[in-house]
């Protein structure tokens, strides 16, 4: 049962990693589970799965894009709601919502702040990704070059 689960976990890893190491990892599972049980290896497999998809395969960029997208949708929804409340404030004077009308200037400030925050977040993230990826490429290239020249 645990072996089947572990195989599934390995199968769910990114293809490059799976092709390179899954066979060996299953072999280690077979060796270790006889003596120490497979539960710890299952946790290790789960952690590895998360690490490979989120940190190594670049899928965290998709996750970050999703979060930013959600932020944008939420900000848009909030702004729309504020506009609606402001526009209909004079019609439904008796409703509790209309008792606190929002001034147009406040609305504009909120909208500008939201757009500004999103822009700063996107620019910051893009800078960080650029720095992270160029450093990684530089380091791995240097290592390979040095390794080849040492042979």
């Amino acid at each position, binding site marked *: 049962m645990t072996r089947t689960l572990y195989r599934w976990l390995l199968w769910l890893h990114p293809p490059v*990693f799976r092709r*390179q*190491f899954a*066979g*060996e*990892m*299953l*072999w*280690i*599972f077979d*060796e*270790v589970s006889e003596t120490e049980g497979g539960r*710890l*290896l299952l*946790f*290790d*497999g789960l*952690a*590895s*799965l998360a*690490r*490979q998809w989120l940190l*190594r395969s670049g899928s965290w960029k998709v996750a970050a894009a999703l979060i930013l997208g959600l932020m944008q949708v939420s900000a848009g929804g909030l702004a729309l709601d504020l506009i609606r409340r402001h526009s209909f404030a004079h019609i439904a004077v008796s409703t509790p919502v209309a008792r606190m009308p929002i001034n147009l200037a406040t609305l504009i400030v909120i909208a500008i702040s939201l757009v500004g925050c999103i822009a700063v977040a996107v620019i910051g993230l893009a800078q960080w990704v650029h720095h992270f990826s160029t450093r990684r490429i*530089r*380091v*791995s290239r*240097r*290592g*390979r*070059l*040095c*390794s*080849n*020249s*040492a*042979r």
Partner: protein
Amino acid sequence: MTEDFSPFLPLSPAALHILLSLAGEDRHGYGIMQEIARQSEGQYKLGPGTLYDNLQKLMIQGIVEESPHRAVNDDPRRRYYRLTRFGRGVLAAEIARLEGVVREARVHLRSPRRAT
């Protein structure tokens, strides 16, 4: 030509243990795990996920490579790994760095300053 190992230092604990285990001989993944447990007297245990994540990174960096070494009646799933010459240099540089840290720590621990 003097090689610059500074971009690779300091090594993570997992990477350091993997390189140390490969310094003596070529080993397969399970052999690396066992050697790490032996060297650290069971205090540091590496799971296969962490091991192969680090091995992949070290192979991309040219510090570790796959070895053609095969034993008779070996399981075909086993693959052996070894340090490259560059990897040996990185390990030596890391050990020198750690020696400096230990030396510094000893000096400070021997003569503790009293707060005034």
